[in-house]
C-alpha cells in the first residue's frame, strides 16, 4: 500500500499531551528559527499592506487610468505605469488584499475539511477509515488545475466566491492524508487509552485530547493549503479566468501579458506581481519548513560541521 510508505515519512513525534499553551511555544519557535523568522516578517508585511494600503502609496484608486501610459520607473512612479496609465506600485499594494484573503479564507476552510476528514479517518479506523482514505486519495490524484479551469469557464469569469470554493474543494486532500497518519499513530497512546477508560465521549476525546497534540501539523496543513491557494488563484487570474477588473496580482499579470509588457520594455509590470506572489508563497513555504523542523527534531540543521555518526 502506498499509504503505508507515506506514513513512514511522517515520524511520530510529540505523543505527549502538550504542556502549557501551544501558542506560546509556537511564538518562541518562530523567534528562534531563522527560516520561520524570515517567513513571518514577509507575511506580516503583506498583512499590513492588505489592511492599510494607504500607508504605502498616495494613489487612492489604483484602477483609475490617471497617469501617462507606459512610463519607466521614476520617483513619482516607483515601478512605472501600465499601458493603461495606472501606477504599477499602487496596483501591487492594493492587490495584496485579494491575494491574502484568498489564501487565508481558502486555507482555513480547506484545513477545517482536512481536519474533519483526516482526524475522523485516523481515529475511527475500520470501514469508516477505508472510505474516508479512499476519498482522500481520489481527490489527491485527480489533476485539479484542469478541473478548475474547466469549472471557472462554466461558471463564467469566476467571481471571488466561486474561486475560493473551488480552491477549498481541491485543496484539502494533502493535509487530510497527513493528519490521518499522525492520528493513526496517536490512537493507541496511553493518554487516549486513559480517556477512554474514564468513559469520555468520543467527540470529547477527539476535540480535547487528540486535536491539541496535532497543532503543529494542522498549522502545516493550513500553510500548505494557503500556498496552494495563492499559486492556483494567481495562475487562474493570469489565464484570464478571474474577474478582469479586480485589483489583484494575478489580474495584473493577465493584463501585462495581454499587452506583451515583457517584449515592450515594461519589465516591472510583468515581473513585479509575480514577484509578490512568489514572496507570499515563499513566506508560507519557509514557515511550513520551519514548523517541520520544530515538530521533527531529526530534520533540524546540524550546527557543527560534519558529525561523526559512527560513534554515537
Amino acid at each position, binding site marked *: 500500500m*502506498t499509504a503505508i510508505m507515506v506514513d*513512514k515519512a511522517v515520524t511520530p513525534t510529540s505523543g505527549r499531551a502538550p504542556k502549557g499553551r501551544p501558542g506560546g511555544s509556537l511564538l518562541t519557535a518562530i523567534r528562534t528559527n531563522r527560516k520561520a523568522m524570515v517567513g513571518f516578517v514577509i507575511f506580516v508585511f503583506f498583512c499590513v499592506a492588505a489592511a492599510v494600503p494607504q500607508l504605502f502609496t498616495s494613489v487612492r484608486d489604483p484602477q483609475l487610468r490617471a497617469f501617462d501610459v507606459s512610463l519607466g520607473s521614476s520617483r513619482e512612479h516607483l515601478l512605472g505605469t501600465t499601458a493603461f496609465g495606472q501606477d504599477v506600485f499602487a496596483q501591487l499594494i492594493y492587490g495584496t488584499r485579494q491575494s491574502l484573503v484568498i489564501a487565508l479564507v481558502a486555507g482555513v476552510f480547506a484545513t477545517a475539511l482536512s481536519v474533519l476528514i483526516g482526524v475522523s479517518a485516523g481515529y475511527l479506523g475500520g470501514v469508516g477509515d477505508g472510505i474516508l482514505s479512499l476519498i482522500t486519495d481520489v481527490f489527491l490524484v485527480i*489533476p485539479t488545475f484542469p478541473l478548475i479551469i474547466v469549472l471557472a469557464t462554466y461558471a463564467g469569469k469566476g467571481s471571488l466566491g466561486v474561486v475560493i470554493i473551488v480552491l477549498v474543494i481541491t485543496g484539502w486532500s494533502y493535509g487530510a492524508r497527513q493528519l490521518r497518519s499522525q492520528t493513526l499513530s496517536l490512537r493507541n497512546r496511553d493518554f487516549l487509552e486513559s480517556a477512554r477508560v474514564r468513559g469520555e465521549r468520543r467527540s470529547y476525546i477527539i476535540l480535547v485530547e487528540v486535536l491539541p497534540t496535532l497543532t503543529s501539523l494542522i498549522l502545516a496543513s493550513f500553510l500548505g493549503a494557503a500556498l496552494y491557494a495563492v499559486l492556483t488563484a494567481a495562475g487562474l487570474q493570469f*489565464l484570464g*479566468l478571474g474577474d478582469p477588473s479586480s485589483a489583484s496580482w494575478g489580474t495584473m499579470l493577465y493584463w501585462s501579458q495581454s499587452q506583451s509588457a515583457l517584449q515592450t520594455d515594461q519589465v516591472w509590470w510583468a515581473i513585479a506581481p509575480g514577484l509578490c*506572489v512568489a514572496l507570499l508563497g515563499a513566506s508560507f513555504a519557509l514557515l511550513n*519548513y520551519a514548523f517541520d523542523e520544530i515538530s521533527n527534531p*531529526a530534520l533540524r540543521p546540524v550546527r557543527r560541521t560534519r558529525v561523526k555518526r559512527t560513534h554515537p
Partner: protein
Amino acid sequence: MRFLLKRMGFFVLTLWVALTLNFFLPRLMPGSPAEALMARFRGKVPLSSIKPLLAEFGVDDSQSLVSQYFDYLANMLTGNWGISTTSLGEPVSKMIREALPWTLGLVGVATILAFVLGTLIGVVAGWRRGGKLDSILPPVFVITSALPYFWIALLFILVFSVWTGGWLPSDNGYDNTLDPGWNGEYIGNVLQHAILPGATILVTSIGGWILTMRNNMITTLAEDYVRMGRAKGLPNRTIMIGYAARNAFLPNLSGFAMSLGYVISGAILVEYVFNYPGLGYLLYNATINVDYPLMQALFLLITVAVLVAVLVSDFATFWLDPRARTQG
C-alpha cells in the same frame, strides 16, 4: 497480488470519479453550454441550430440526465470525443493526437529529469548532513518550490530571450519557417525551443524532490539496520545506496505519483506562456473559446495520464518493496 489488484481497483474508481465530476459539476453550475455557445456566436445563430451541435457531444436536453450520463461515459471511454466547436468540424481526437507528442516530449522528459536529479541530490544532501551542500540547498529549494511556474517562465523569457536579443526562442515549439520532418535542422530547432520551457519545469519542480528525499534519507539513516551496516564495516557507498537510499526512495516514489497532478497544472501554464503547441495550450484555447467537447476530452486525457503514472509507481513499489508483496 492482492496489492496490485487493489491498486487497479483504485485506478478504475478514480477514473470513474473524475469522469463523473467532469459530467455533473458543469451541470450544477449556473449557465448552460447552450447559453455559452449563444453568447459566443453573439446571438447570430438561432437556438434551433445550436441544439443539434450540442447533441453531438452529449448535451442533449431532450434526453434524461441518466441516459446522457451513460452516453457520455461510453463516448469518453471509446475515444468518441466528438467534434471541436473551435476549429469548426475538426474531430477532437485529431487535435489531441497532434498536441500530445509535444506535451509528452517536453513535460514528460522535464518532469522525469527533475525527479531523478532531485532524488540524487537529495540522497547526497541527506548523506552529508550538515555539509556545505546541505546547508545551502534546503532553504534555496524551499523557496523555488513555492514559486509560481508562470513567473519563472516570464523571468526566463526576460533574461534569455528579451535581454539577450532573442538568444533562445520563447515562442511556439519550432520555427514556423521550417518544414516538420526527421532532419537535423528541424530536430535541432525543436530542441532549442524546448530549452526554456523545459528549464522552467525543471527549476520549479526539482526542489520538492530534493527536500523530501533529503528528509527521508535523514529519517532512514537513523535506523538500526544502517548502524548494523556500519558495524559490519561495509563501504560507505554500499550503505548510502543499498541501505539508506533504497529505503528512503519508496515514499518519494509514491509522492511522485501523487504530486503529478500538481506538476501538470504548472505545465499547462508554462505551455501557455511559451505558446507551446501541447495539450496545456490546447486546453487554454478550448477554455477561451468555450469548446466543451475539447475541454472534456483533454481533462479525461490528463486524468488518465496521471493515473497511469500512479499505477506505474505502484508497480515499481511492488517490485522494490518486499513488504508490499507479502502484505497484500
